[in-house]
């Protein structure tokens, strides 16, 4: 692994271990943002700039703000609880299963990987002449897979409506009964 990626990966590992062990929730929320920023750096190194944008803006930015907003509702420190065995066993088993699953994946950057021989060469060769959009990622997401993206936008909309209905928030409008709820 190249040294920069190794460094980022080790920093990411250290950050998530600290987050898991911290009892101070404010520090944990800030460190979660740092973990997202490190992940975004890794994505940039892997040439996945689109994903890095999203990770930096959502993971490091917006979700940290939302964590802090949620923290203002509760106490700043996690309650001390006795360490239980069963949850640890489940977590370790799940993690081991996931790592076992990665053994079957092609090595990072492997040119013989299936993904580089099925569909991808066709898309790289034909996107430009078919629809004249230089960014193949955008062409796939917006045009070839337009249905999927439409579904995703509807999902985001639904999530927003759900949050608005459950939490209400600023300027909540009157219900039919005419009472205004301040929440």
């Amino acid at each position, binding site marked *: 692994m190249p040294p920069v990626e190794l460094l980022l990966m080790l920093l990411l590992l250290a950050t998530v271990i600290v987050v898991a062990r911290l009892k101070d929730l404010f520090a944990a929320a800030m460190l979660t943002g740092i973990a997202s920023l490190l992940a975004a750096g890794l994505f940039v190194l892997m040439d996945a700039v*689109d994903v890095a*944008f999203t990770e930096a803006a959502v993971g490091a930015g917006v979700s940290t703000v939302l964590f802090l907003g949620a923290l203002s509702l509760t106490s700043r420190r996690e309650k001390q609880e006795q360490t239980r065995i069963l949850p640890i066993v489940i977590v370790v088993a799940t993690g081991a299963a996931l790592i076992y699953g990665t053994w079957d994946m092609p090595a990072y950057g492997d040119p013989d990987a299936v993904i580089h021989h099925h569909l991808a060469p066709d898309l790289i060769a034909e996107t430009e002449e078919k629809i004249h959009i230089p960014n193949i990622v*955008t062409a796939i997401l917006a*045009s070839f897979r*337009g249905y999927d993206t439409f579904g995703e*936008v509807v999902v985001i*909309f639904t999530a927003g409506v759900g949050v608005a209905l459950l939490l209400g928030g*600023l300027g909540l409008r009157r219900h039919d009964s005419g009472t*205004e709820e301040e929440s």
Partner: protein
Amino acid sequence: MRPPSRVREMPILRVIARALVPVILLFGLYVQFHGDFGPGGGFQAGVIFAAGLIIFALTFGVEALRQVVSVVLTERLMAAGVLLYGAVGVLAMFLGGEFLNYSALDPLTTGHYGQHLGIIAIELGVGIAVAATIMRVYYAFVRRRPDGDGEARKPALGAEPGEGTP
């Protein structure tokens, strides 16, 4: 005299935020409209745009942001983004193509301009919907009160301590 404990009274943060927010918003627009050529697109642009506005709210107060983007406006824009996306698809059907087949938007040529038009329009819909949804979620979190009956024990993130229903 109060010590400048709140973010809004810290001059360094205020000055930096004032300089950064327009750049972030401009970058959001760049990512939005340059999405067919460079990395990016509606989702990323919407998130960046909303994050810029949230930084504004964190430093200058959520009331200042509400004067620009009201809660009702975010709700309307959420729906408008989805409808814009869907409308492009339906328009393509009326012009003789399949749902979301942008080539039909431009029947005169072989469809390249239609693809450009369609992609720009639907990416705009995605960007509007995503930005508005994130703003709406932020608004939902920002003024939740710990005791739930309106009076804040401690000011929530970005909220004025004394405002709201007395």
